[in-house]
């Protein structure tokens, strides 16, 4: 099967990654996959305001996913947070938490801001990739770097890294995952569509392989900053 952009079924779109892109942040990263460009900045651990949110037992990871108003493929995106962006913020948070030890930061917060500059499907996954890199760039202890990708079924063919055209196809099933490269476990899993159990397991294995390739890009970019 030929994909609309000429890729093989298990081929990822071209990727680019860079860290240290926001000088004033404690850590930051840009992750580009195809035409989707995500940027993330990290501040903290810092004092948590308002004070009533403070927890003496553990710190808070606070993620905020936002699409810039001009980053959508159609109409202008409204600037206020939508239900969609709030949900993505939440799943981003949960995708990252397994690699962090928040108990080390009582009463504090680690803020992660994800901004989408341009979108062409897979924005939450690109956001998670950028966020994980930004956390590592900030020097925050982590047990792993999180990589994310969306795979899916289009007319029963398993495709890796769904683009916008494929995503818009009515018959497509979209499976967004985040994977911890070392353990191979998943910290994000969202499915829109129709799959059976066998297909799901097959898709997860494929996604795991794709995440390995993404991880290599993330790892290289993190080190690149210190080479020169």
């Amino acid at each position, binding site marked *: 099967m030929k994909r609309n952009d000429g890729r093989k079924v298990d081929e990822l779109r071209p990727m680019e990654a860079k860290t240290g*892109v*926001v*000088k*004033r*942040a404690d850590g930051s990263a840009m992750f580009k996959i195809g*035409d989707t*460009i995500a*940027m993330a*900045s990290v*501040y903290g651990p*810092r004092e948590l305001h308002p004070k009533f949110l403070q927890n003496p037992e553990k710190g808070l990871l606070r993620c*905020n996913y*936002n699409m*810039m*108003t*001009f*980053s*959508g*493929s*159609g*109409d*202008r995106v409204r*600037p*206020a947070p939508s239900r969609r962006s709030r949900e993505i913020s939440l799943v981003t948070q949960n995708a990252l938490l397994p690699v962090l030890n928040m108990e080390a930061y009582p009463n504090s917060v680690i*803020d992660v*801001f994800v*901004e989408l*500059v*341009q*979108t*062409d499907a897979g924005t939450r996954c690109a956001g998670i990739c950028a966020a994980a890199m930004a956390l590592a760039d900030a020097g925050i202890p982590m047990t792993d770097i999180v990589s994310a990708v969306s795979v899916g079924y289009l007319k029963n063919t398993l495709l890796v890294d769904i683009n916008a055209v494929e995503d818009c196809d009515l018959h497509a099933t979209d499976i967004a995952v985040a994977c911890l490269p070392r353990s191979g476990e998943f910290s994000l899993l969202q499915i829109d569509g129709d799959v059976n159990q066998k297909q799901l397991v097959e898709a997860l294995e494929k996604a795991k392989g794709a995440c390995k390739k993404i991880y290599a890009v993330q790892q290289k970019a993190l080190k690149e900053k210190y080479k020169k």
Partner: protein
Amino acid sequence: MKEHIKKLLDNDLREDGRKLLEYRKNIKVEYGISPKSAEGSAQVTIGDTVVVAGVKFGVGTPFPDTPDEGVMIVGAELIPFSSPDFESGPPSIVAIELSRVVDRAIRESGCLDTKKLCIKKGEVVWTVFVDMYPLNDDGNLFDAMSLAAIAAMKDAKFPDYDKKTGKVNYTKRTKTGLPLKGTPLECTVIKIKDKLLLDPSVEEWKALDARLTVGFLDNGNICAMQKGGEKSLSVKEISKMVEIAGEQVKKLRKVL
């Protein structure tokens, strides 16, 4: 440290070694940073300050008092992504002032021919949204955003409009750019004690007593102005600041 900035200024010195009226050297405008999503976009770099602006088109009904004119809306958001000083939540008063000051220069210059944005008089007109974000705030967001907004507008191309369905086809872009007649640009001069400075850093901005943002037309006339800060300015000072800003704007216009 505010006191340190003031102490240096007594000797006409600045923290980063620049002269009082010296702009940072590496000013850069990149076009089309979001070419697939935005109909126009640009990124402006001044030193370590980076801002982006994007243009989106929409269609809507005109205002009743201007039935044959399209609408332009300029907005800025100070996202906490770009600085530890910015907070989450609805636009702060700082962001609102920033949007309105950038908007004013573009609007009042009359550089955008809003009559050419009319699709059907009294019924359908184009709406042009210009949205700006800092990616890294290292000072002087006013000038950076003024540059970014006009650069993104220059970069913009209309999407296809289907007269039958009344819908915009964003996947098809025309070759027509915005009907722009000029490039209004703003430059900000700040005053700390009795000294005037260009292109302030974040720390200098925090220490300012007064500031004046001046918008200029291509012919050098003034099209917008905003005085900020807690202290007052004399006619002599205002005149001097306008002169300084006017000279700098000529240089800034060259990077577009």
